[in-house]
């Protein structure tokens, strides 16, 4: 049964959030209930800018944030408009930015096209992608954290890989190189996330083809969890030290009873091989910058001797920065370790095989993250995987630093390939063409469709049938303009519509809408010379615009203000603007070539 909204207690709600089998409907309710009633120590604001519709991601981002005690506000961006989103997110005070570009829409059905494109075309597309994302990441350098999802496939590859795989790898390397120049960027391996979910369960092609919403709830759930991990729960935690018990944590058995000869740590026998592997993982973490500490009820000299003289020990006493090996209680020892290192208790991760010790730490210093070693050694490795996630998911290790250096050098070498100094330089490189047609009956169906589908950049959100459009085209008092946009990669088709109605020397913009695919390129600025000239030629003296707010079109709210029209107040149907046509100066868009059909 799905509970009615508002009936979950915080504890019940948290239980639903933690339940991997929780239904979507119950999750939606539980997230809102916990947010409404829980006392949460930390708040963050995340902005999501994606090349696909990922609205449901908001639910899963909030789910996993709440599980880390973080109240998350999620702002969704527009479709494939990272630069515009970043400007809006910055103004809205977003801390953490999630960028999720989509490979398949780099060009329509790019996964299929990549298999047939000539190398020169691919290289041009790669350079454009690089230049665009360099601009985006540069614009995003002010955010505390940026989580960049890499490119991935939606369609399955063929066994052994196909050309699309090769192109995908190449584009991901290019993206990684661009990302390496920015310290606040973490990349998420989308192909690994898809593999975790399973490709058949990761996508919903119905919603992809209909509304470019390819991801299944299962995939968005894992993505939400990974974003929380990659951002260290939105910056709410930062683990620095791994504090390890010794007996049955670093080796099998009890040193005081089994003595040095009896502890199990051989790489060639079970369960010694589990502990040997565990030690190897811990030392690897140490090499990547994690501070290793010991906290064990043991004889300090015996432990040091064992670590340094036992032939199978991977971890040496010199790998350990602080040792609290004594018979005092562990809670006090953990406080001492934090004090010695001068780090917060919330920076400690504690690993112990004793349920008693784990519980004592959990209850007395809840800031410390606690892992209990499972009694079945074989299960230990999955616990270690979680510990590694905690330290490494958000990066920052030495290896990462090296890699970052490498990438930086490579990125610098490639600087000349695709360097745009400004957004306008980038736009100029696109060779944008806007072809404006007037009352073209051949475009009526497409114009109607656009009016039905466009929500974000739609000033009045009037929906027209094809017959409505045909009527407006034949009406001498109205003109229907269609905008066809093309760039050097090819045509994007009819992507903008303007309907102008003339009445007693007043030209009113009855409708103005753009497909979200072409936003952020100034297309909506490029048409005003044409509109104004036509209106003057028809004997009009006043240009009037109307903005009717809807839940979706907030981004267009100040469009007429920016265009230089004067607000005349709310006329019931929306905010009315006008300007004398004689005084109206259309915005300049030198990067767009405007043609007339």
């Amino acid at each position: 049964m799905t509970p009615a909204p508002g009936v979950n207690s915080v504890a019940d709600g948290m239980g639903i959030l933690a339940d991997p089998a929780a239904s979507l409907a119950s999750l939606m309710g539980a997230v809102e209930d916990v947010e409404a009633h829980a006392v949460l120590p930390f708040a963050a604001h995340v902005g999501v800018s994606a090349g696909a519709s990922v609205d449901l991601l908001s639910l899963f981002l909030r789910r996993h944030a709440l599980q880390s005690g973080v109240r998350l506000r999620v702002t969704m961006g527009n479709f494939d408009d990272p630069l515009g989103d970043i400007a809006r997110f910055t103004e809205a005070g977003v801390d953490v930015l999630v960028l999720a570009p989509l490979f398949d829409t780099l060009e329509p059905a790019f996964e299929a096209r990549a298999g047939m494109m000539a190398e020169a075309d691919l290289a041009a597309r790669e350079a454009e992608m690089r230049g665009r994302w360099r601009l985006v990441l540069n614009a995003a350098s002010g955010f505390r954290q940026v989580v960049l999802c890499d490119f991935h496939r939606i369609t399955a590859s063929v066994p052994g890989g196909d050309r699309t795989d090769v192109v995908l790898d190449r584009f991901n390397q290019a993206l990684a190189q661009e990302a390496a120049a920015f310290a606040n960027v973490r990349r998420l391996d989308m192909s690994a996330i898809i593999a975790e979910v399973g490709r058949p369960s990761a996508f919903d092609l119905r919603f992809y083809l209909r509304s470019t919403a390819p991801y299944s709830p299962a995939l968005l759930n894992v993505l939400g969890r990974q974003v929380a991990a990659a951002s260290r729960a939105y910056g709410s935690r930062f683990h620095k030290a791994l504090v390890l018990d010794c007996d049955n944590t670093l080796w099998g058995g009890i040193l005081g009873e089994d003595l040095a000869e009896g502890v199990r740590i051989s790489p060639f026998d079970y369960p010694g091989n589990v502990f040997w592997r565990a030690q190897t993982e811990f030392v690897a973490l140490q090499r990547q910058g994690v501070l290793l500490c010991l906290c064990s009820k043991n004889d300090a000299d015996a432990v040091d001797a064992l670590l340094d003289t036992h032939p199978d020990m991977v971890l040496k006493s010199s790998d350990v920065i602080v040792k609290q090996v004594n018979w005092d209680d562990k809670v006090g020892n953990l406080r001492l370790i934090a004090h010695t290192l001068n780090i917060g208790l919330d920076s400690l991760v504690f690993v112990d095989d004793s349920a008693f010790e784990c519980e004592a730490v959990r209850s007395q210093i809840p800031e410390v993250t606690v892992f209990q070693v499972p009694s079945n050694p074989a299960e230990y490795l999955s616990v270690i995987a979680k510990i590694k996630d905690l330290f490494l998911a958000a990066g920052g290790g030495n290896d990462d630093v090296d890699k970052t250096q490498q990438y930086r050098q490579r990125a610098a070498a490639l600087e000349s390939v695709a360097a745009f100094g400004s957004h306008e330089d980038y736009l100029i490189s696109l060779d944008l063409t806007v072809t404006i047609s007037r009352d073209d009956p051949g475009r009526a169906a497409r114009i109607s469709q656009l009016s039905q589908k466009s929500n974000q950049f739609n000033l009045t959100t009037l929906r027209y049938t094809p017959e409505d459009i045909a009527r407006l085209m034949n009406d001498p008092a109205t003109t229907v303009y269609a905008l066809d946009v093309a760039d050097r990669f090819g045509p994007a088709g009819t992507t903008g519509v303007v309907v102008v109605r003339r009445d007693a020397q007043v030209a009113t913009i009855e409708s103005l809408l753009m497909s979200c695919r072409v936003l952020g390129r100034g297309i909506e600025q490029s048409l005003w010379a044409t509109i104004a000239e036509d209106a003057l030629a028809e004997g009009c003296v006043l240009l009037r615009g109307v903005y009717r707010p809807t839940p979706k079109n907030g981004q267009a709210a100040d469009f007429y203000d920016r265009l230089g029209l004067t607000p005349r107040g709310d006329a019931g149907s929306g905010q009315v603007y006008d300007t004398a046509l004689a005084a109206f100066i259309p915005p300049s868009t030198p990067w767009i070539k405007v043609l007339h059909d």
Partner: protein
Amino acid sequence: MIDEDALKGVMAAVLRVPATEIGPEASTDTLPSWDSLRHMNLILALEQEFGVSIPDEDAANLSSYALIKLVLNELTAD
């Protein structure tokens, strides 16, 4: 026949309205919160709750309680 209380529960949870507001007359016209985004969430939640796969051609058109009930009953009929 489907469990209508379960249907109302899912719709209430997804559309964020009290279950008492979900009745035979509920539709995209009567519930302002039933927008295209929530509609997609609703379809996903219904598929999960009732263990069905709603065909693409139906998914976009299920704009009322009555239509949803009709299609779910068809899909769950033995």
